[in-house]
């Protein structure tokens, strides 16, 4: 008898409603972790059986069979066979099958039942099946499979009591769990058995409902479909920049008043300036972007939960195929517009290794939200907002141009990579298209909350720490009294900056930029606060300190320098988190180092070209 609670694995095909069932069973009592090495998320939670015994429930990644073709599916196979090095041997399994998709889901269920562990089958989404005109007999299914079958509707919490009761019985009869061998029945034999059982269990069947077909007739239409996709993306980016302005202004005002309050109540001195100029200004400059990031994630989560994202992948496949990628890569790349870190993690669903690697390597070129503070500051200060066309102004146009340059850069990079370092046969595109469904409010809210917490943690740790360290390095040592040397030039950071300046001078960068580049490695948006800090400390005469950051930029930067700086940020891999997640996802330093190398080279060359072109045309 072991002390630990019995382990129950929740297994099933993708799109069987497994996660919804997991959420319904565990409620808020769940933990999200990672399987080491493979970065497949491990969702687990505790539930109580009818007799009060606690059980640990683990939600395994969806799979089609016990023959894995992606890291996710490998985790599932290893756990259910009891050969995982990170998970105990499960004492029982809940096999989740979609009632409307018996043929297919029963095949995997048969494989799982053949492992010989206690199994309860959750016949999920019976309501949708019935709405689609499909009536099933769970009793026939139970007899044919030889295990209990419980009809459930996870999203409405129906059938959960039955499920728990059968699980209690199954665990009561269980012998101690041991590793099992893979069943050796061939896939086509299993499929034939699955079809026969499905046929026996179906009481009556009418063709699937028309509305889903109508939706797809529009969404996947050769002409209307792509137009709809472009419209959705346009609305998404439009919303990010318009809806966010009110909450962003409020956050900004909040930080300003906090700064004002501290300035009024704390004695003047180095510590106060560290808190106001460094910490509050630095962290505030970043947190202002929280509303934009949440709006972007809101769109992405809704697109994913509704089933539209796979349709978008379908439409994009042709275009992605021209650079040797598949439509699947579109999903992580779209997420990378919010942040490359979840984007790179989302590449796990790409089966082909070369395909996945290429997607990871180009993901940092998507204009992530950390670039917005940098772009907004520089464009706002240096580019006049003259109207170019009706409704189009120069500042917006430059912003859009940077976005497009990033996408074009990714396109070229993928083209080159797929012919050189990640050469290989073009991978296929074969995907089940999930049913359309209304996204559930709780799931979306939970997703947004998780993102917000990650973002705020980052602002509170990495960004706050970098800003404070930079502030210290910029302030010491102090130049001798009356020497007339600028305090920044005399400081440690100033000396390091002069070293970097030698390298970046040819592409038009000045000392301020050289100083900002190093701390911006921690996170791109730190560049903004770093430049602000440099000017705040450099300000030896109190009067100039009243100048806004934008005015100072106008006075000290030339237009070619500003343009080169923007171009640098399109390409430069200035983000420790991205490098770290790439290392984790590719299991080593080789690919992250390659990524950093090629992106810095591209940044240097592109910024240089921009600078010299701009100088040549006399900007």
């Amino acid at each position, binding site marked *: 008898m072991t002390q630990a609670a019995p382990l129950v694995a929740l297994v099933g095909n993708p799109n069987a409603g497994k996660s919804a069932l997991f959420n319904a069973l565990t409620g808020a009592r769940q933990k999200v972790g990672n399987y080491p090495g493979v970065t497949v998320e491990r969702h687990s939670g505790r539930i109580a059986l009818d007799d009060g015994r606690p059980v640990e429930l683990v939600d395994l990644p969806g799979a*089609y*069979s016990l*023959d894995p*073709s992606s890291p996710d599916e490998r985790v599932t196979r290893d756990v259910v066979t009891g050969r995982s090095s990170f998970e105990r041997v499960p004492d029982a399994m809940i096999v989740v099958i979609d009632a*409307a*998709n018996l*043929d*297919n889901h029963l*095949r995997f269920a048969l494989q799982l039942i053949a492992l010989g562990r206690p199994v309860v089958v959750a016949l999920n989404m019976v309501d949708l099946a019935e709405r*689609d005109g*499909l009536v099933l007999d769970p009793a026939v299914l139970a007899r044919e499979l030889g295990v209990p079958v419980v009809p459930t509707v996870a999203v409405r919490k129906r059938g959960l009591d039955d499920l728990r009761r059968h699980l209690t019985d199954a665990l009561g009869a269980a012998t101690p769990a041991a590793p099992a061998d893979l069943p050796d029945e061939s*896939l*086509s034999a299993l*499929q034939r058995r699955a079809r026969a059982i499905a046929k026996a269990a179906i009481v009556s069947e009418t063709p*699937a409902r028309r509305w889903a*077909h109508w939706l*797809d*007739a529009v969404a*996947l*239409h*050769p002409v209307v*479909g*792509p137009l709809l996709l472009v419209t959705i993306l346009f609305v998404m980016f439009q919303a990010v920049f318009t809806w966010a302005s009110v909450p962003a202004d409020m956050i900004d005002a909040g930080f300003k008043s906090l700064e004002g309050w501290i300035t009024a109540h704390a004695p003047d001195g180095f510590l106060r300036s560290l808190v106001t100029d460094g910490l509050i200004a630095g962290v505030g400059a970043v947190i202002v972007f929280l509303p934009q990031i949440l709006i972007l994630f809101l769109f992405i989560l809704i697109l994913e939960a509704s089933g539209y994202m*796979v349709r978008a*992948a*379908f*439409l994009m*496949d*042709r275009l992605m*195929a021209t650079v040797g990628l598949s*439509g699947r890569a579109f999903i992580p790349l779209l997420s990378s517009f919010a942040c490359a870190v979840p984007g790179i993690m989302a590449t796990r669903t790409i*089966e*082909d290794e070369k395909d996945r690697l290429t997607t990871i390597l180009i993901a940092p070129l998507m204009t992530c939200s950390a670039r917005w503070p940098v772009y907004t500051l520089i464009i706002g200060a240096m580019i006049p907002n003259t109207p170019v066309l009706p409704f189009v102004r120069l500042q917006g146009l430059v912003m859009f141009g940077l976005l497009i340059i990033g996408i074009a850069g990714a396109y070229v990079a993928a083209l080159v990579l797929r012919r050189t370092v990640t050469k290989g*046969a073009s991978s*296929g*595109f*074969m*995907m*089940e*298209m999930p049913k359309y469904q209304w996204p559930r409010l709780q799931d979306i809210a939970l997703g947004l909350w998780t993102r917000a917490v990650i973002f705020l943690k980052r602002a509170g740790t990495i960004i706050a720490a970098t800003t404070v360290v930079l502030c210290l390095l910029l302030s010491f040592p102090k130049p001798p009294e009356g020497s007339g040397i600028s305090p920044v030039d005399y400081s440690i950071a100033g000396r390091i900056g002069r070293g970097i300046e030698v390298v970046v001078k040819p592409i038009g960068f000045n000392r301020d930029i050289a100083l900002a580049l190093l701390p911006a490695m921690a996170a791109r948006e730190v560049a903004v606060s770093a430049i602000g800090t440099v000017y705040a400390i450099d300000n030896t005469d109190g009067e100039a300190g009243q100048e806004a950051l934008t005015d100072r930029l106008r006075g000290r930067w030339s237009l070619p320098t500003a343009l080169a700086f923007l171009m640098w940020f399109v390409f430069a891999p200035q983000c420790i988190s991205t490098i770290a997640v790439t290392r984790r996802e590719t299991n080593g330093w080789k690919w992250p180092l390659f990524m950093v190398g090629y992106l810095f080279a591209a940044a240097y060359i592109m910024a240089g070209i921009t600078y010299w072109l701009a100088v040549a045309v006399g900007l």
Partner: protein
Amino acid sequence: MASDCLATFPRRRNATVSTIDWTRLAPPEARRLRELGFDEGVEVQVLHRATLGGGPIACKIGRMTVALRRAVAASIHVSPVAG
């Protein structure tokens, strides 16, 4: 080839898979195709074809909608179902 293949078969018409050229497919592709339920004798229907030039197709198999590239669809031979 006398029989039609899924890549060129008319949309929204029921068809039965007559043969699949498993040898023309890469092993992982063939396996995934089997996992999605493609097999000799199964009923399929082409639902949609993406953008005019050679994009993927979406077809109905069982109660599932599956996206396939045309190259793969070309190795799935089908014959029309009467009626």
